[in-house]
């Protein structure tokens, strides 16, 4: 199993500012994933964070808006840049485990005012 710690757990931010979310895993993992969960909706994959290479973004998400760092095999950050109220969501990081399941952090609840 994997234990994932996300920081901050929640934040209220002014529009136009940026927030960096941290994800720390208690073991080394090759891939980490970042998801967004908008209010009342399901999870949508933002990008895959690979150690030692650029993140891979899903359709509709771009690096300028959601820059990702992956400095080592246990840590990643997601930045939400130039925020607008539409960015108000829960952001979650996830790591796969073997061939059975994915583990998720507790999420970061972001409110943009």
């Amino acid at each position, binding site marked *: 199993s994997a234990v*994932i710690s996300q920081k901050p757990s929640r934040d209220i931010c002014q529009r136009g500012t940026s927030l960096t979310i941290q994800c720390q895993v208690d073991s080394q993992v090759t891939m980490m994933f970042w998801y967004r969960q908008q209010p009342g909706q*399901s*999870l949508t994959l933002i990008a895959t964070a690979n150690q030692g290479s650029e993140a891979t973004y899903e359709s509709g998400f771009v690096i300028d808006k959601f820059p990702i760092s992956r400095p080592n095999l246990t840590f990643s950050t997601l930045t939400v840049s130039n925020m607008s109220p539409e960015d108000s969501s829960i952001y979650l990081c996830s*790591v796969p485990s073997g061939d059975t399941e*994915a*583990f*998720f952090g507790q999420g970061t609840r972001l409110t943009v005012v």
Partner: protein
Amino acid sequence: SQKIEQNSEALNIQEGKTATLTCNYTNYSPAYLQWYRQDPGRGPVFLLLIRENEKEKRKERLKVTFDTTLKQSLFHITASQPADSATYLCALDLSDSWGKLQFGAGTQVVVTP
């Protein structure tokens, strides 16, 4: 693109009864399907994985079936308890990389004593 549908209406059920949730998908042939539980303010927690060559999987009071012809999975909670109240998400692999998942919107289950 693939589409995953889950009942959007909450399922209200009396304690001790069996809750049955449906997950339908289109335009896709997943290698496996997963079910997760999500409590308010928390990240999803893995429950069960069923592979394309498996018809049924059980874990304690949970049972999952997978019909690749119908493109449907059923999730059963038997002898339901108030503690089972949560939102249940089904997820399919995005196949190009382990751990990348596409989620349904989830079905909320409310178990009343």
